[in-house]
Every structure is written in structure tokens, then in C-alpha cells.
């Protein structure tokens, strides 16, 4: 009971802090979304020039959903490792570490508190593309299952974010390495799952990795004529939880190592 109460209090407190920052620095979040928006538009423009010559077959819906999902993931992963990096400089990381909560629990609370902003970012970005690009065939009215799936995907994303955060604790300035990995995720999201050979290793990995599985499920929700969500939901919960727990476990090991090497206050 005490632990649950304290965790809820922590999430509330982090959410309040998040709102304060949004209010004080609105341009930071808006410019991030605008920056992401412009990049994909530029990609589309370049691709449309190529496809005009008949050399490309673009699946716009997959590209947009994949790109918005990458933005959603990036704000978690980069957020956590960025926070670790900043707070070790500020000295607040040490304060978090002696708060009585595990550092991993504080990060999880931050993940939950950032979720509404990330969802909002996801939909704003998607809606902006729908307005800018004609003939998009997406079921926007299915926002409730989309939010549900994004929440479950986020649990898997947290697993990866934990690993990134742990590596940041140990190796410090590794932000650009993570950027590269995020763009690799984008490549995976733009991969057409149907074109993979059924039963191949890559197809199997695609179906269990919570991010690519999430991409497949989101594409299904946004574009299928009829929805049957039970099976995709169960799969998503199962694999996201496995990745989340695995990431937390690895983070705990890396945090232990960081305490041995006195790295919590180094940057």
C-alpha cells in the first residue's frame, strides 16, 4: 500500500513538473514536433520527385505511422538518457538516488508522467500530415485503441529506454549513438512486414520486438476495415512486458556498477 501510494505521489509530482515545464517553455515541445514534421515532409518531397519518374512505390500511411511512432519512442529514450546525463551534472541524480525509490522507479514514474504529452505529440504530428498530404486513408476515429496500444508499446519502449539510460550512467556522452539506433528503428518501421518471408528469422524477430510489433498493430488499427484486437493486444502486452522487465533488470545491473565506480555524479 505504502509503495503504491508513494509511486502514485511520485507520478503526480513528475506530471506537475512536466506541466510546469510545458507552461514555461512551450516552444521547446512545439519546435520539436515542428522539426520532426518538417523532416518527414522533406523526405516525402524528395520521394515524390523520384516516384514521379516511376522509380518508387511509396506506402504513405506506413511511413507516417512509422515516423510518428519513432518520434514517440525517441522522446522516451532520448528523454531518459538525456535526463540522466543532465541530472548527473546538476547533482540532482544523486538526490534521486537517495530518495528511497530505486532510480529505475523514478524513471518509470517520469515515463508515465510524460505519456500524455507524447500521445498529444503523436496525434498532432499525424494530424498535421493528414492535412498536408491528400488521399490519406487512416481511421482517426479509432483513437482509443491507438492510445491503449501506444501505452502498451511504451512499456516495451521503456525497456529499451532503461538500457539506454543505464549505458548513459556508465559511459556518459552517448547521445549520438542512440540517435543512430533510433533511425535504425525507423528503417524497421518502414519495412513492409508482408514482404518478409513467413517463418524467417527476421520475420519472427519483427513479430516479437515490441516496437516493430507495435508498428504492425498500429498500422492494422489505423487502416483495417474491421478490427479484431484481442490477439494483437495479448501479443503486444506479453512482448512489451518482457522487454520492459528485461530492460529494468539490465538497468539495475548497470546502476549497481555505476555505484561501484562512483559514476552517479560524474558527467
Amino acid at each position, binding site marked *: 500500500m505504502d509503495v503504491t501510494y508513494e509511486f502514485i505521489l*511520485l507520478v503526480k509530482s513528475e506530471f506537475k513538473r512536466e506541466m510546469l515545464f510545458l507552461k514555461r517553455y512551450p516552444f521547446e515541445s512545439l519546435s520539436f514536433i515542428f522539426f520532426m514534421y518538417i523532416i518527414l515532409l522533406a523526405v516525402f518531397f524528395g520521394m515524390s520527385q523520384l516516384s514521379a519518374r516511376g522509380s518508387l512505390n511509396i506506402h504513405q500511411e506506413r511511413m507516417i505511422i512509422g515516423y510518428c511512432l519513432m518520434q514517440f519512442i525517441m522522446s522516451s529514450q532520448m528523454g531518459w538518457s538525456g535526463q540522466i546525463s543532465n541530472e548527473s551534472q546538476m547533482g*540532482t541524480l544523486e538526490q534521486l538516488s537517495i530518495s528511497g525509490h530505486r532510480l529505475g522507479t523514478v524513471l518509470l514514474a517520469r515515463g508515465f508522467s510524460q505519456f500524455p504529452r507524447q500521445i498529444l505529440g503523436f496525434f498532432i504530428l499525424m494530424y498535421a500530415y493528414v492535412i498536408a498530404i491528400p488521399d490519406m486513408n487512416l481511421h482517426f476515429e479509432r483513437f482509443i485503441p491507438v492510445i491503449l496500444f501506444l501505452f502498451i508499446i511504451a512499456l516495451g519502449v521503456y525497456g529499451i529506454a532503461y538500457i539506454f539510460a543505464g549505458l548513459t550512467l556508465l559511459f556518459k556522452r552517448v547521445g549520438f549513438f542512440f540517435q543512430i539506433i533510433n533511425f535504425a528503428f525507423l528503417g524497421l518501421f518502414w519495412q513492409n512486414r508482408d514482404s518478409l518471408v513467413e517463418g524467417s528469422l527476421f520475420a519472427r524477430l519483427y513479430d516479437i520486438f515490441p516496437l516493430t510489433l507495435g508498428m504492425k498493430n498500429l498500422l492494422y488499427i489505423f487502416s483495417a476495415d474491421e478490427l479484431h484486437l484481442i490477439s494483437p493486444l495479448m501479443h503486444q502486452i506479453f512482448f512489451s512486458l518482457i522487454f520492459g522487465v528485461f530492460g529494468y533488470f539490465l538497468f539495475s545491473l548497470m546502476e549497481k556498477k555505476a555505484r561501484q565506480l562512483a559514476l552517479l555524479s560524474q558527467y
Partner: protein
Amino acid sequence: MDINIDHLSKIYTKPFTKKSFQAVNDVSFNIKSGEIYALLGPNGAGKSTIIKMIAGLVTPTSGRVLFDNNVHKNYKVLSAVLEGSRNVYWRLTPLENLHYFANLRGISSRNIIEKSHQLLKDLDIEAKKTNQSRHLSRGMLQKLAIATALITDPKILLLDEPTLGVDIASSRKIKEKIRSLAKEEGKVILLTTHQLELVDQLADQVGIIQNGQLIRQGSIHELKENTLKYLYHICIKGKFNILPSWKSNFQLKEIKSHDDTTEFEINFKNQAGLSEVLDYLSKNKTDIVFLQKKRDNLEEVFLRSLNTNDVE
């Protein structure tokens, strides 16, 4: 609550070269409830590492930290102000910082409303309570860091350089606060500082650290007694040859030697030593210009302890 630091050591080993460095070497001391313990030492002596090991931020290579004779797991009983002013969120106001850190430790905001205002008032930062902390001066940030450490009413308070960069008036406020926390509220306080005047006025126990080792410890009175009680400055008329036995038996430092006077500083260690030297001087009808007991201050104790340890 009492703290027992039991044979604490920390060795850092570089991952690839395997070169190791001993930051803390077999340090043991106790702090009782209501007591202020000051750790003194030159830069890099290992003071901050000891504080961080007590706070659980650094894992000891060996040894234990016991709270009331139990290996502690619950960090909520302690608060720490570490390394100057880097302990608060610069983009939050002082009041928001206090609420955030209280929430972080499981205390709801509504339970600290009065206390947060009182703390800000006590530490003279109430006027800035709605300014973002990045606009505060270094001294104010330091006071805010202390306020955030106190908001959850911890039983143990670890203060690493609590008055660093703080003006005289604020330093006095902090000093009074620390004293009242220990003496009136019974908190255990461990502090490190280079301001020996602060230690002289506050500390019940002092530990002097050098190269990771605790080279002296005790009450200020004990340290002064042991280090300075038989320390004298002697000036003798004319050229005087100091006996080799004095050099070997006592700690002796020649200060000046001219044709007309010879000055030296000597630690007799005990009454017998003092008597032996005075008897010799008297028998040889030596003309003593002055015989002065060294000033009884902590700085002298500290510097002498470091020098003695170097010699030893």
C-alpha cells in the same frame, strides 16, 4: 539514531588498465544522536567519498555503514547536501523544489505547506520563493539545497561543505540551524568543511582524514590537548646548538637561527619532556628570551596532524 562506520574502505580500479587507487582506507567512527561530527582533510583526502558511501551513492569495497547497529537499506532516514549548490532543479522555484523533493520521499505537498514556508523564512530565501532557482545567487542555492534536505525531517543529515560560497550573515544562519537540528531535534549530523572556525564552533567530534585514512579523531578539546598541550615556541639568546636527543625524542622545528638568538618550536609530548628541557636550559644557565605556548586553535591542530602524519 546512531551511525556506526565500520572499517570502511574504497578502492577504485580502472576497468582496462586495472590501475587501482585507494580513496578510503579502513575508516571507522561513530556518531551518536544529537551529535555533530566534522570530517576535516585536504582536497582529495576522501571526505566526500565517505559521505557518499554513507548515503549509498558509492558502494564500499569493504566495511559497513550501520544505523542503530543494523546494515541500512532505507535511505529515507537521511538527507544529504552534496558538493556545493548542485542539488536542486534550477528551472523550478524554491517552493516547487521543496514540494518536489518532499513528494519524491513520499510526503504529500499538503503536509509540508507550513514547513516549506518556515524553512524558506528561516534560511532567508522566502522573498525569492517564486523566482526560478537559476536566478538565485550561489549562496541562496546553497541555502535552498539545505532547505530541500530538511523538508522531509531526516534523522541523519550529511552536509558536504554546507557554507561554501555563502555570505557571512547566511553562514551564521546555517550554523545556527545546524546547531539547533542536532541539539534541539537530536539529529545526527556529519559535515565536511574547510572552514575550521565553523567546526570549532559546532562540532562535538572531529575526524581528520589524509590520503583516505583517519589520522586523528576525538573531541576538539581532546585534539587540542593531544596535539598542542606541550607545543611551545622557544627563543634563546645567542647561538644555541639543539641537542640531537631532543631532535629524536620530540617533534622539533627550528624557526630562526641568528648570531643573537635561536628560535625553535618544540612539542614535548608530555610533562616529563617539558621538565627535561627546562632543567637542561636552567642547568646550563641559558638565557631564555621567551617561552611561549602555541596558540590553542583548531587550524594548528589540523596542520600539525597532517604534517606529523607526513613525517610518520
